């Protein structure tokens, strides 16, 4: 009775119970199925680092043809939308009012200085938004240098001894930020639904006293863990499919690696994420604490420290170590690679091994929180 067949019967019974509870509360389905879809749509369209047509005020104090030529280069940039302004004061007023994101100023002596090999253009950006400011600096620089080279060509001076960069960006030729944000969203969504859906499951049973009744049955802790995992894993698997379809067909993100591997890795991470929620739930035994912990332990680190937008290469060593301890970081690297770069086995094997290790560790820890003891 408590042998293998008992295990099966009990597991099926518990899983059926969890599934019924899941389906009865509509807010579960709302969070489990609708939220991921809404998120991926909202953020797929909403999140972008790509500055387009950024308004830039141009103050042309030097009205010589040479200066005009150079400034014309700004018009050619698809990223910038130059607006001619009469004076510096006007331009600053526009910038204060957030009407323009930057000011390009060609001083009165620009042409003369340029002829002497010292052409200087002043760029003023708003450092309060450093992302946009940095992007604009890059675009203005690029546009002006190109214009300068063209001008030199026309003048027949020639680019004597110049160095040109032949730039090739692998995996994301157009440098479209959506290509790396959308695969990252997959990580965020998996993290969220995992933690949110399961983080209350065990705490709720403690608070409502149902675990005490359950404990004094032939049920084994492992069966409780597995039964709480199964139905939510199904929901998560549906989300994986939704996210992949959106990524591929709505946002045209290429899938260069093996689709099968993406699905496998996503399911693996999903299990880690669900188990993390369950572990928090079992360890806190209290819905209030569990919800706070889930929020703090899942969402924010996954958003800020996993390499979703902030490149981990830029952070201090201590933070890198912490980031490397997050399962989300490894899944993030894997997903971006599988989407954009292809099936690169060393990364696939390393990441999957780490995720699998996390799954095992969390499963053991969660099982331990369900030891049949009230003291």
């Amino acid at each position, binding site marked *: *009775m*408590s042998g293998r067949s*008992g295990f099966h*019967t*009990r597991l*099926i*019974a*518990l899983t*059926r*119970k969890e599934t*019924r*509870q899941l389906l*009865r*509360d509509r807010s579960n389905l709302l969070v489990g199925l609708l939220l991921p879809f809404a998120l991926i749509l909202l953020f797929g369209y909403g999140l972008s680092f790509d500055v387009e047509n950024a308004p830039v005020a141009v103050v042309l104090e030097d009205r010589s043809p040479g200066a005009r030529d150079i400034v014309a280069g700004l018009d050619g940039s698809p990223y910038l939308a130059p607006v001619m302004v009469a004076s510096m004061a006007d331009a600053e007023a526009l910038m204060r009012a957030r009407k323009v994101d930057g000011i390009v100023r060609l001083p009165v002596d620009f042409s003369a200085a340029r002829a002497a090999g010292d052409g200087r253009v002043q760029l003023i950006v708003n450092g309060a938004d450093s992302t946009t400011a940095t992007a604009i600096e890059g675009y203005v620089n690029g546009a002006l240098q190109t214009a300068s080279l063209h001008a030199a060509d026309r003048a027949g001076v020639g680019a004597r001894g110049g160095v040109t960069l032949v730039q090739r960006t692998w995996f994301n030729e157009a440098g479209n930020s959506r290509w790396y944000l959308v695969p990252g969203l997959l990580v965020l969504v998996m993290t969220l639904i995992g933690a949110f859906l399961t983080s209350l499951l065990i705490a709720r*049973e403690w608070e*409502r*006293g*149902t*675990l*005490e*009744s*359950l*404990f*004094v*049955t*032939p*049920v*084994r802790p492992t069966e409780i863990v597995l039964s709480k995992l199964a139905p939510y894993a199904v929901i998560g698997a549906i989300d994986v499919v939704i996210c992949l379809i959106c990524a591929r067909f709505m946002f045209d993100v290429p899938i260069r690696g093996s689709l099968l591997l993406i699905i496998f890795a996503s399911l693996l991470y999903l299990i880690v994420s669900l188990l993390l929620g369950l572990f928090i739930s079992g360890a806190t035994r209290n819905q209030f604490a569990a919800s706070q912990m889930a929020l703090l332990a899942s969402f924010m680190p996954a958003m800020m420290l996993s390499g979703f937008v902030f490149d981990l290469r830029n952070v201090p060593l201590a933070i890198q170590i912490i980031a490397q301890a997050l399962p989300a970081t490894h899944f993030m690297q894997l997903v971006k690679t599988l989407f954009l770069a292809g099936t690169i086995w060393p990364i696939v094997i390393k990441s999957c091994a780490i995720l699998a290790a996390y799954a095992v560790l969390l499963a053991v820890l969660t099982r331990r929180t369900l030891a*049949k*003891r*009230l*003291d």
Partner: protein
Amino acid sequence: MSAPDPTVAIQGLIKRFDAPDGTPFDAVDAVSLTVRAGELTALVGPDGAGKTSLMRMMAGLLSPDAGTLSVLGIDVRADPQSVQDRISYMPQRFGLYEDLSVQENLDLYADLHGVPQAVRRERFGRMLEMTDMARFTARPAGKLSGGMKQKLGLACTLVRSPDLLLLDEPSVGVDPLSRRDLWKIIEQLIADERLSVIVSTAYMDEAERCAQVFVLNRGRLLAEGSPEALRRRAEGLTYVAEPVAGLPPRDVQARLIDDPGSIVDAVPKGGRIWFIRRPETDEAALRALLPDTRFAPRAPELEDAFMLLLHAHEDGDGTGGTGTPAHEAAGRDGGGDIQADDDAPVIVVRDLVRRFGDFTAVASTSFDVHRGEIFGLLGPNGAGKTTTFRMLCGLLPATSGHLEVAGRDLRTARAQARARIGYVSQKFALYANLSVRENLDFFAGAYGLSGARAQDRIGAVIDQFQLDPRAPSGILPTGYKQRLAMAAGLLHEPEILFLDEPTSGIDPLARRAFWRTITALARSGVTIVVTTHFMEEAEYCDRIAIQDAGRMLALGTPAEVRAQAGGDAADMNAAFIAIVEQGRVDDRQDRHAA
């Protein structure tokens, strides 16, 4: 003498917990006992006696700090799972999954216990029939009334025939009808399957049904034996008094219970007073105490023995943990100075109706309550008592009808009107993570008391209910939680006090103390509306109303209601069951006629 192996064998068992102040105390203190197989065994004792800890240890959910514990011949500490595979345990609050239906809950536990499909059909059929729930199999467990939940919990516990059944206070908060049903199921199973059952209970009439009774108090085993043997301990000490006409029985009872030097216990019952004298008190002293009242010896009951045992233990121990709270402080400045000068009722209810969708929770109910009256609202679980209560307190709007508390409808009344009522809700509803003192501070503030007045009142209720101000309220024993709730409800000296099942889960000792406080309050002019499942408590009320399925079945003094039930219904319990059952028959006939 080939006695079968004992079901439970306990030697010198100790379970230690940390008290709120960090000092350890023994919840179970060197208990040794043996439970015989195939019998019904009771654990009785006041709150905090260690009954639940003992049961949890038997179920392998708590590990003992010392001693040996073997259940069904298995050392529980070494192999809890083997025990759990063979026993069934129903905790005080059975963990039904409220979002699952009755049938789904049953299926779940049947699967977990590995009940074969073939056995299951017969078993379910019997359980559903015995619990009278066959009609409700599709209903979510959360939508069942308290009594039905308890019955379903029992059914889930009994989906298979265990080798040992542990029931922790199965009848707390259950009405007399459901309680009767519950016991029918248990007794039938014992008869049919020779089940070994251990039950903890606060009801002495339940303990009386058991073959073996263990009396516990504060972790100690005080006595054990058959009900008959225990009863004999009170032999010759028990009496019944007949109050002279016009004198309310509860006044005589109060006079007796206020003399703990001579009297162990006194309760009103069927218009008379049952009491126990101390062994050292002679009949002459009794006559001095009751000069104008006739009294005569009566046969002892288990409850008498229980009260004697507890009093002896508490006396021997000095400070009484469950002592009787002082009650005189409850009175307003000297007490009884509020004249019943206006005979206008304080609470007026006319044709009150409350519907939830197409379900009528309260149907056309009318009654009045006068100043200083104790008004009891009785009825089975789900009868509409709580709904009526919530409407009276202004927590729920009435669908139709007229409702007046202290001259207004509290739902639309300005806040000041609410300052005149006190409310103690069914389940403990104070802030569990705050200390007793912090809870009282809060409610004093919430009722607008501040400064010296707040301090005075808080000090007064702490003394009155013998509370420990520093104790975290969440881990107080049930009886103390209940006292704290009462204390919070009385802080602002309300004119009207609403008490929803205030004595559920409270031991007899604490219930006596509680009712002593209530009667003292009523005498000082406070109007009290109370619900209860202990029918003997209806005897304390001036008038009672019996509700079932939202309808009012009886209304009058306890004597009138007993009379309505028919001559042979001597006690309130029988009267209640008779009236509710008659009401249900009439209802069915009405529906047939319609």
